[in-house]
């Protein structure tokens, strides 16, 4: 990625690709009201990466009259815009904001709501880290004086001051561990926080006792330092926790609220969807969604069936055809007879499938949780055994207690608590710089385990927009005429012709669009028709694997336009790369067999399944899982959403349907499909580093624990050992930044690390 001069080549390419901008409705729905007629919209702009981008974008937005303020956040690649709801009495169209960003050559996407939330806890955690950092630095200052030989009254004074600093810190910063440990114990379980809470409480109590009795060793520094390191781990971990996702509720938005029911006498009544019974007749106008499954009684139209098969190309429908709930009626009014009630319709089935699939995902247990399961009983047992052991050896309760506390402090999972989250935060930052958003830390663990990649076709392997491929073979005059006709339709093929011709001449005559067929124009030269072969020439030709449109004059074919869906950039290379990573690939598509076969051959995938329903895709994922495979599902449509939930781990492009984006664990923001192998590679490296970190942490324990059990551990040794092991683990995790420097050269800091560094210098 080179630095951007606005309007450079890559920028133009993005504009031409013309990916769907978020719609005005979506933007309204997702904007926040600030009061006073102002609204705030946060848009993700993955392309910003330097100061020039900030100036360009903010400048472009601020020139719009409806924009109050705009601010780019470079760290999160986001722009937040505050805009006026009304401008001179007219309602503003928020899509203009997105269009302004697009016009400068940047891709832009809406952010799914719920991705930002949980901020409050993070803020509390960061504050707790700051307080613990301050306390541990100051106590350490006093402890160093004690270790360097402060005696008698001075030592007692230092211990007392340490205690005064440590006590409030324990309450303020330690509350997260106490709350979590108490919660676990209340339910009869134990977790990593139980030994932590026990260790800090015990070590503080014994240190206080030592201070009161003028003892030589107090563990205040160890206690607070422990808290500090663990809180860092906890904060990073919190950043990687999956946010609650509401994929199903956003799917429910797609189902219409009601429909116009026609009764026997020809009367019309608008009724809620739930009250529509099979056998009733419904009037659906153009632009409405079909509320329930049904059969067409009257009329012809084009249906956007992307919810069923993921295809963006509309399908023509006529009398007698079955229609599915949730599909969008594009061009003509229809009268349908309901064949199923709303709760039995396709949309309800997809929602049901997704609910069922959500359960499977929850069964995955994170590496850290699995480690904690064995770790905490082991630690308790070790401390207890050393206490009992020393009671036998010299019978001195006081000494045995000191040793047990030393064991608890030394074994406390400092490095272990950092081992996983540090790596994951760095890996997530790495992925983010390369345009991949991680929703959940455990997703990276799961991604590292996969052996099979299943991809959807339209919108995933391809961009999902038809493009004219034989433009060079067509006479320019025919192309211009076709464009003149095409400009009157919003059918994707017509728009592709219009795009290819660049300009559309005005055609004098009576022009009308015939739903489900094409466009015709009665002119002086004759009757021009643009549309399917049957419509334009009057004979139903053989359907080829490709989509096509014919331009005819009085039934004579003038030109045949062929279209093809454009492959996503780097599709072929990415599939090869996946093969090199040792993964088997396959296509799951809702499209027709020959089209899928052609595309599979082009990208070099051998296995494919065509004409799959949403349930069929889920079944394919389930079958693979039963065969012992771990599946990564990459898809974008609503019809993929259940499969995205059902697969071991899932990925979706940012252009995906809202539901698809929310159902996926990863969202890639750039166009290229190479984000997929890149994410897998990074996750695998992260997995390796996590395992190395575990080995390092356990190795540290193997050395340190015998020292503690034998009673040689002083607060000084504990402090040195604890910080060394934590630093080693963090440094090892940092190697990930060096190892994956292949995609983006610039390596700007992640906010988290920078925050922590700032913390380190506090106090």
């Amino acid at each position, binding site marked *: 990625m080179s630095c951007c001069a606005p309007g450079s080549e890559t920028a133009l390419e993005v504009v031409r690709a013309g990916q769907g901008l978020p719609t005005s409705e979506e933007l309204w729905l997702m904007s926040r009201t600030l009061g006073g007629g102002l609204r705030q919209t946060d848009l993700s702009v993955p392309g910003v990466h330097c100061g020039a981008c900030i100036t360009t974008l903010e400048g472009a937005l601020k020139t719009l009259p409806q924009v109050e303020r705009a601010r780019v956040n470079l760290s999160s690649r986001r722009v937040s815009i505050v805009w006026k709801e009304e401008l001179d009495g007219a309602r503003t169209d928020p899509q203009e904001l997105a269009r302004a960003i697009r016009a400068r050559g940047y891709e832009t996407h809406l952010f799914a709501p719920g991705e930002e939330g949980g901020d409050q806890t993070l803020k509390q955690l960061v504050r707790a880290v700051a307080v613990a950092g*301050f306390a541990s630095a100051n106590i350490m200052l006093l402890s160093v004086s004690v270790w360097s030989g402060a005696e008698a009254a001075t030592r007692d*004074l230092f211990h007392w001051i340490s205690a005064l*600093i440590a006590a409030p810190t324990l309450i303020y910063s330690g509350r997260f561990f106490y709350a979590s440990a108490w919660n676990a114990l209340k339910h009869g379980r134990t977790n990593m926080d139980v030994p932590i809470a026990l260790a800090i409480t015990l070590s503080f109590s014994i240190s206080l006792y030592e201070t009161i009795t003028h003892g030589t060793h107090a563990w205040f520094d160890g206690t607070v330092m422990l808290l500090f390191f663990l809180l860092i781990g906890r904060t990073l971990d919190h950043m990687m926790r999956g946010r609650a996702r509401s994929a199903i509720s956003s799917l429910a938005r797609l189902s219409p609220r009601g429909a116009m029911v026609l009764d026997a006498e020809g009367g019309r009544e608008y009724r809620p969807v739930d009250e529509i019974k099979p056998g009733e007749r419904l009037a659906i106008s153009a632009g409405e969604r079909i509320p329930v499954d049904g059969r067409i009684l009257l009329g012809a139209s084009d249906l956007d069936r992307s919810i069923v098969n993921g295809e963006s190309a509309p399908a023509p429908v006529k009398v007698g055809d079955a229609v599915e709930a949730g599909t969008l009626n594009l061009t003509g009014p229809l009268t349908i007879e309901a064949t199923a009630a709303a709760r039995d319709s396709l949309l309800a089935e997809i929602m049901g499938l997704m609910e069922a699939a959500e359960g499977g995902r929850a069964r995955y247990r994170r590496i850290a949780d699995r480690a904690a399961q064995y770790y905490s009983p082991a630690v308790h047992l070790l401390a207890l055994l050393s206490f009992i052991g020393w009671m036998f050896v010299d019978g001195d309760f006081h000494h045995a207690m000191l040793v047990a506390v030393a064991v608890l402090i030394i074994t406390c999972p400092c490095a272990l608590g950092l081992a996983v989250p540090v790596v994951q935060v760095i890996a997530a930052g790495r992925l983010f710089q390369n345009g991949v958003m991680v929703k959940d830390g455990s997703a990276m663990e799961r991604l590292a385990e996969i052996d099979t990649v299943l991809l959807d076709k339209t919108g995933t392997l391809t961009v999902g927009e038809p493009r004219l491929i034989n433009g060079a073979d067509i006479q320019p005059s025919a192309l211009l005429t076709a464009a003149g006709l095409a400009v009157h339709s919003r059918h994707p093929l017509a728009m592709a012709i219009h795009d290819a011709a660049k300009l559309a001449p005005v055609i004098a005559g009576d022009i009308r669009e015939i739903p489900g067929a094409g466009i015709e124009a009665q002119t002086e030269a004759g009757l021009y028709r643009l549309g399917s072969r049957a419509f334009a020439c009057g004979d139903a030709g053989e359907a080829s694997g490709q989509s096509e449109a014919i331009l005819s004059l009085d039934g004579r074919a003038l030109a045949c336009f062929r279209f093809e869906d454009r492959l996503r950039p780097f599709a072929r290379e990415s599939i090869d790369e996946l093969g090199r990573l040792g993964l088997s690939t396959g296509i799951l598509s809702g499209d027709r067999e020959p089209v899928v076969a052609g595309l599979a051959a082009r990208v070099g995938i051998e296995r494919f399944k065509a004409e799959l329903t949403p349930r069929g895709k889920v079944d394919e994922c389930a079958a693979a899982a039963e065969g012992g495979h771990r599946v990564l599902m990459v898809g974008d449509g609503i019809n993929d959403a259940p499969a995205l939930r059902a697969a071991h781990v899932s990925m979706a492009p940012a252009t995906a349907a809202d539901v698809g984006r929310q159902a996926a664990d990863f969202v890639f923001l750039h166009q290229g499909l190479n984000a997929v192998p890149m994410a897998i590679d990074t996750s695998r490296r992260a997995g390796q580093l996590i395992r190395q970190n575990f080995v390092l942490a356990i190795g540290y324990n193997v050395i340190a624990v015998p020292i503690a059990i034998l009673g040689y551990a002083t607060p000084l040794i504990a402090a040195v050992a604890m910080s060394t092991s934590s630093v080693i683990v963090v440094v090892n995790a940092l190697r990930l930044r060096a190892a994956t420097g292949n995609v983006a050269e610039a390596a700007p800091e992640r906010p988290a690390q920078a925050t922590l560094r700032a913390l380190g210098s506090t106090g």
Partner: protein
Amino acid sequence: MNTLIYLIPIALFLGAVGLVAFLWALKSGQYEDLEGASWRVLDDGDGKPEKK
């Protein structure tokens, strides 16, 4: 040893100042966009504060 009477409070006070400064910076959103801030400092702009 008498020096401790005022040195320790000074040390603690300075530490506390650092802590408060950090919490204030955090609260006022100065850690929201570290990457952007490093670029914005290079932007000449028109020298006027942004209108609120």
